């Protein structure tokens, strides 16, 4: 190895490419109280973490300095927009596998490996986390009913045979990430991504994951009102090009 190559690899390792090429994208908006712990948990497993601070007004950006990379939206755009920014960033930095991970602490870092292994074992481009195949601790009945209705809606509109929808824990290959073009800035991005997966014809697999609900994550979660807004967003998006 020449001196130049040695230096290049020194620079590249921490910032440009993790040893296993797995990049974890965390979209965060006013998550200063939990984001530090989430970053450390994911980093401790050897993944490259990119946090997209979606115009937070608290100390999210400062706390996220521990991440390998921090991308800051100048204004709040929504989770869908933040995820797309993170995916774009990871792609341009050479990620092989991109994992999306919620910032509110309801996902387990241990599940990332399951998703990555599922992609490699099944030779597919997407691994979608499913709390209904796995486990969901502390999920209220109303949330369960809402999610099952949303899953049925997704099955009918996309034709995908899935057991969970709006689960933020998912992994995609580089090829898969390239077909994802989220234009729904807010919560409807999850349905939009599933539509794009269905339209692409690329392979996917569902993976049992654990979702741990807490008072904090439930407060940040979706309500029936949000679900209606998602439906309206999806409908409105079909009315213009």
């Amino acid at each position, binding site marked *: 190895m020449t001196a130049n190559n040695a*230096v290049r690899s020194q620079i590249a390792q921490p*910032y440009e490419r993790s040893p296993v090429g797995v990049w974890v994208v965390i979209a965060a908006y006013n998550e200063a109280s939990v984001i530090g712990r989430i970053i450390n948990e994911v980093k401790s497993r050897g993944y490259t973490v990119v946090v997209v601070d979606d115009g937070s007004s608290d100390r999210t950006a400062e706390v996220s300095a521990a991440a390998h990379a921090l991308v800051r939206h100048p204004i709040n755009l929504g989770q869908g*927009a933040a995820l797309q920014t993170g995916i774009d960033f990871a792609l341009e930095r050479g990620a092989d596998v991109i994992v999306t991970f919620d910032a509110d602490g309801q996902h387990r870092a241990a599940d990332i490996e399951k998703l990555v292994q599922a992609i490699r074992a099944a030779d597919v481009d997407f691994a979608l986390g499913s709390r209904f195949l796995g486990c969901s601790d502390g999920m209220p009945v109303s949330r369960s009913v809402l999610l099952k209705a949303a899953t049925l809606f997704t099955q009918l509109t996309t034709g995908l045979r899935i057991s969970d929808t709006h689960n933020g824990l998912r992994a995609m290959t580089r090829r898969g990430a390239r077909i994802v073009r989220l234009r729904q800035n807010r919560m409807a991005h999850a349905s939009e991504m599933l539509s794009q997966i269905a339209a692409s014809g690329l392979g996917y697999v569902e993976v049992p994951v654990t979702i741990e609900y807490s008072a904090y994550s439930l407060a940040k979660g979706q309500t029936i009102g949000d679900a209606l807004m998602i439906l309206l967003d999806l409908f409105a998006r079909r009315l213009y090009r």
Partner: protein
Amino acid sequence: MIAQTVISTLLMGVVAYAASERRRSPVVAWLSIIAAAAGLYFTWMPDHATQAAIWAGVGRGVDLVLYIWVCISLIVLLNLHLKLRSQIELVTVMARTIALAEARRQLSEKAGPRRASGGNP
């Protein structure tokens, strides 16, 4: 006659606006064109408007034209909403470009001292 001319001019304006929006939001454009065409027809065929109004349970032909006008207003409002959404998409692209450029700059700044400490000229 004066009222008919004024209403027709306004409806023709709606048709022109809808035609100009046809590419961006075809559903909204066609809804506007159909509603405006119905309005034009009933404006110049008041007897038919009255018959259609009675059939629809409105009562008077002029009320039917008024309701059509309200429908057109709502469709145009929907179109403005869609336009706003497409503007937000442009803002998103711009904010993303700025955010990514800033992140690249920060990474190269972080990498800079490492290169220096590695003894590379």
